[in-house]
């Protein structure tokens, strides 16, 4: 018999996600794992224990699993937050949304006064000028703050960067004669300071604090990300597209291995500038370096771009506003070969597909690969998969594919999708959670943090209510129940990561990972689901109050 200490936690209610006993009042924990959930009487049979009452008025759920985020959310909090909506930072401070371009400038001015050195760049993130009418942000706005230091502000989408004149000058872009779709020109023939797409952004990025080398391997950022996870009830989070160079892996191993690191990170190797053979070999090697709190060995693949950036690949009839079809990021031959080899070597592959044509291509490639290399439990997952229709979900089900949909898009860009990108009909079927479930597709939902804020309960609220920022409801028939939404942010996401055997529900043998809630998500009104207060988390039996994060 083990000599380790047993703790039995009493709670107001425990939602286990275990259909055999969906609710309980007590959960027993030993060695960071769950001995059982049930009544005190049932659990006492495990022997001597401490009874811990601190959660007696709280609701426990399985720790939330964020199936599509990036640890760069932690990195971005080093910059000034300039989003339109309130957002909580890793310290728990809620930054109010910025309501106008003048407020954007004012917040940057306030930050500027605190900068010590005269040449330090002033950097912001989260800007979303679609909420400020037709007026674009231009360099003159930021030149009001400074013409001496460089200023750069990343948009919420991550696809646009606004800079001041000084930054353009240093990047060699303050000149006439430029002719590039990513560089907006003013009536004077000079760039306005709005730079779209990776090429134009890369040129200026390093001058305004968004240097790729700084952003990669960011230890303080990883720590900030972990604190955000605690505040949002997340005990396992993906870092979905990392190049994972050796130094980043050792940093992540060291930091996640610290006794007080509160979250399990699942980091996927991005498929880029590699042959499928090399990628699978690298993934197999990474798998051997995995630890309990740093899971490695899976691959992330990009099939297309983004819908709001018009780089997603759409099937007929294409974009509502007539924009040309988007871009392929990986040739079909490479996708098919990667799938085949990964199935052979039991390497998990998650594929980014935004447009429905990209989804169709991924399905075709997996269909072919499975014929060559049958693999009954591959868990290959389509990430975003925003525009998939019912037939595609049926096909995913038949191929054993999972979907991780992106309901947060409804809130942040749903109006834009309705009016501009894909039009009313497809906007109302986007992120068809109900169809996915009805088709038997294993479902997760995600934030893609930092694109939208990390917060599985907010994501669940989006899937349940399907409201846009302006209050429009996008497709009531695709709403899912609160119970289904809660399952997708726990066991559903765990399934797509092949972790459902060790986490995602509160039942014997699994990690003692809990989201500790002040309010009961099944009692609160569905339209208030996002307002459920979070005490913090328990991760592998260790307590992490948000107040101390």
């Amino acid at each position: 018999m083990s000599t380790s200490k047993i703790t039995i936690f009493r709670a107001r209610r425990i939602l286990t996600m275990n259909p055999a006993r969906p609710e309980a009042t007590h959960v027993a924990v030993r060695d960071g794992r769950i001995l059982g959930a049930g009544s005190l009487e049932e659990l006492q049979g495990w022997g001597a224990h401490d009874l811990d009452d601190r959660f007696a008025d709280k609701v426990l759920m399985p720790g939330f699993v964020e199936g599509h985020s990036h640890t760069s959310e932690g990195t971005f909090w080093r910059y000034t937050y300039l989003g339109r909506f309130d957002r909580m930072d890793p310290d728990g401070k809620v930054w109010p949304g910025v309501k106008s371009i003048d407020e954007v400038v004012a917040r940057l001015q306030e930050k500027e006064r605190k900068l010590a050195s005269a040449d330090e760049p002033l950097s912001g993130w989260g800007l979303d000028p679609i909420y400020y009418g037709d007026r674009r942000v231009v360099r003159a706005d930021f030149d009001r703050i400074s013409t001496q230091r460089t200023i750069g502000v990343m948009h919420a989408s991550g696809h646009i960067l606004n800079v001041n004149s000084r930054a353009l000058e240093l990047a060699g872009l303050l000149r006439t004669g430029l002719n590039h779709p990513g560089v907006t020109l003013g009536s004077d023939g000079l760039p306005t300071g709005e730079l779209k797409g990776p090429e134009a952004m890369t040129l200026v990025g390093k001058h305004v604090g968004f240097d790729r080398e700084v952003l990669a391997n960011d230890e303080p950022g990883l720590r900030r990300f972990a604190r955000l996870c605690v505040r949002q009830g997340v005990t396992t989070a993906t870092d979905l597209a990392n190049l994972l160079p050796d130094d980043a892996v050792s940093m992540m191993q060291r930091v996640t291995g610290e006794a007080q690191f509160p979250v399990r990170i699942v980091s996927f190797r991005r498929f880029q500038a590699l042959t499928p053979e090399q990628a699978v070999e690298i993934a197999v090697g990474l798998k051997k370096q995995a630890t309990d709190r740093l899971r490695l060995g899976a691959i992330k693949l990009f099939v297309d771009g983004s819908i709001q950036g018009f780089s997603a690949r759409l099937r007929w009839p294409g974009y509502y506003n007539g924009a040309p079809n988007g871009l392929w990021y990986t040739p079909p031959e490479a996708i098919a070969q990667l799938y085949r080899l990964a199935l052979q070597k039991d390497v998990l592959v998650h594929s980014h597909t935004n447009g429905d044509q990209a989804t169709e291509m991924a399905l075709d490639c997996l269909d072919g690969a499975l014929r060559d290399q049958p693999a009954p439990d591959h868990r290959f997952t389509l990430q975003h998969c925003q525009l998939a229709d019912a037939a595609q979900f049926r096909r995913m089900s038949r191929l054993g594919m999972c979907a991780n949909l992106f309901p947060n898009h409804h809130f942040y860009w749903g109006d834009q999708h309705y009016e501009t990108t894909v039009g009313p009909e497809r906007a109302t079927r986007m992120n068809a959670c109900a169809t996915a479930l009805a088709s038997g597709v294993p479902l997760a939902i995600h934030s893609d943090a930092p694109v939208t804020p990390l917060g599985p309960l907010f994501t669940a609220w989006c899937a349940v209510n399907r409201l846009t920022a302006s209050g429009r409801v996008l497709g009531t028939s695709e709403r899912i129940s609160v119970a289904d939404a809660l399952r997708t942010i726990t066991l559903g996401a765990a399934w797509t990561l092949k972790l459902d055997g060790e986490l995602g529900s509160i039942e014997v043998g699994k990690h003692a990972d809990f989201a500790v809630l002040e309010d009961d998500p099944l009692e609160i009104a569905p339209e208030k689901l996002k307002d459920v207060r979070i005490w913090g988390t328990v991760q592998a039996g260790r307590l992490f109050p948000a107040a101390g994060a």
Partner: protein
Amino acid sequence: MKNSILPVTVVGGYLGTGKTTLVNNLLRAAAGRRIAVLVNDFGTTPIDRDLIVATDGDTLEISGGCVCCSYGSDLMERLMTLPEQRPDVERIVLEASGVALPGMVANAVTLLEPYRIDAVVVMADAETVQAQADDAYLGDTILRQLTAADLIILNRCDLVDDAARERTMTWLAQQAPDARVLPTSYADVAPELLIGLRDGPTPRRQAALQAPGAPDAASLYDALELDMPPDIDLQQLGSRLAAPGTGVLRAKGMARDESRGIAALHVVGKRFAVDPAPPGATPTKLVVIGLRGHLDRNAISNALRKA
């Protein structure tokens, strides 16, 4: 001597059209000129082994002073650091990935001051290009690649009969009316068409315009050497030589330009540029290359007279 402006040849085209073979042919024909080849990845060895003299991470040293680097998703970053890292490099050959749009790649390069797009070259497979253009997934990408081309290299013509090649040429002329089309096999193309003519009183050609490994390739091309009148307007000359119907594949010449001293005119198909000439340059003849029987000598002489 380092050029102040680095010409860039973008090589696009779908997988299997012969981009890698073309790049290797160019490196073999570099003859002392220092070319930096940028490739998306080193996946399938991008450079013939016998050409590689050293490997260092994402850089391969090529015999004769050339270099090959992979750029992954960081093309701009690579281009930004390259002139400082390799000040000896005279020219860039940028191999775009199979699904990239070479027109967009070229457009991105124009954002960087030290570079000039010399040509957008798109490879097509004579046997499969039309079928690919009909593919539900890839068709529009293939067509967007072709329509961005200054030169289309219709490769692997050895795999089709003459009638099929002519049909494909006609089809290409409809799809990409502004591009000049060069039929070939084994990516055999006179290297100066892609990496330019050398500087000199008469911009120098390789002997007999021979493509490597193709003894009879010379018969494919005609070249003209023409005197340029003093005070010629190179901009105007460039636009005339680049106009449809001249048959010009490449042209180069240097002349005195009132405002800028000596300037150099580069024409590749429909594209032309007038750059400041390298220091110490003097006026030269105009050299024009075209497919044999396709150069319109009258139009070219007229262009010189009127410009």
